[in-house]
């Protein structure tokens, strides 16, 4: 081996401890990022395209779920108080601003419920209408009590939930989706508390993309 090669390995030997600590820290951060993304996909209960966690705000939540909740749902209530279902993709396709969606539903067993659109930054989406959600009282319904909410950038008839770019700079978006939907059920009935994976929820359908 050349003297240059020996010098390199000697330097590496001297720096091996700080280098090892740095590599361990970097690897931990990398693996945690992966665990958070996987956790967002898999560690939550699924009900159709909706996802929920039984552990929001609860002391029994594991470290990764608690970290996910802290990032995307800080100060959430426990599920006896309110249940949160999020939806950020339809049939595996992330929600996009260049697509139009239709939400169909009826009424749900809770003191009150609402559907809100959030930007990828977890905050309300800027829009001229200043409309961020629909709730069980302000929806336009059919005679049978059923309703349809249309979600998209362009104005639509009936219950239109406007979406658009998030308030935070798009360059910092690390999410696959452009926005997501959150269904809140305050003081949910037993079906949601005992069978959150099969209790009745609205259906979200992708209508068209440009």
């Amino acid at each position: 081996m050349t003297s240059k090669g020996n010098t390199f390995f000697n330097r590496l030997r001297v720096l091996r401890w700080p280098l090892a600590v740095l590599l361990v820290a970097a690897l931990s951060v990398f693996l945690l990022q992966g665990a958070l993304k996987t956790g967002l996909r898999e560690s939550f209960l699924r009900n159709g395209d909706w996802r929920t966690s039984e552990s929001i705000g609860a002391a029994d939540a594991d470290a990764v779920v608690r970290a996910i909740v802290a990032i995307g749902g800080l100060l959430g209530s426990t599920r006896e108080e309110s249940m949160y279902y999020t939806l950020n993709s339809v049939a595996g396709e992330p929600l996009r601003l260049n697509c139009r969606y239709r939400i169909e539903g009826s009424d749900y067993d809770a003191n009150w419920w609402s559907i809100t659109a959030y930007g990828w930054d977890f905050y309300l989406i800027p829009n001229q209408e200043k409309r961020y959600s629909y709730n069980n009282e302000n929806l336009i319904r059919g005679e049978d009590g059923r309703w349809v909410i249309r979600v998209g950038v362009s104005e639509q008839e009936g219950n239109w939930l406007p979406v658009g770019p998030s308030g935070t700079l798009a360059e910092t978006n690390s999410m696959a989706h452009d926005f997501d939907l959150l269904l809140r059920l305050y003081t949910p009935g037993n079906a949601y508390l005992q069978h959150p994976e099969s209790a009745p929820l609205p259906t979200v359908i992708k209508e068209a993309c440009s």
Partner: protein
Amino acid sequence: MSWVRWIAVILVCGWLGQYPLAMLVPHLIMERLYNKVGDRTGYNQMYVNTRPDETFRNVVRPSPDLLYALCVYNLEQGAVVINAPVPERYWSMQFYQMNTDNFAGISNQREQHTRVGTQVEVTLVGPDANPAEYSGEVIQSPTARGVMLLRASAIGDESQARTALEGSSCQQQLKFVSS
């Protein structure tokens, strides 16, 4: 130690390290929220927020159908007393410790529906205090610092919710009250 062993140790430690790191995340985020909101709204005092819109940043994923009031508390100097009138529509008072746990809560729902129309008075004491030394409704916070959040339904006419939140208070207990 050979290079292979070094690499193996780094991989194992890196894999294990993600868990303490995950445990640290809620503390860091809560600490940031505590200081950011506390500096803006003050500590041990009630702050009633405007109705959430796209500019609202005091709560992650705010509901536009709710009005929020919060008290960023610090119990190191003694207990804090929270007073709040309970409106007819949905209302709750939730307590969060610094690791984000929702450790206690009061509402006007289910068996607590009888609270509607009453005035809730809660004495919030620190982890080292003896709750038996306080009278009335006492809640013990597992951490000396934390956040109390009031939620009130703003669906339809929001005036009742706003009146209830604006009539609520959070303040350091001035005198020690023995039972």
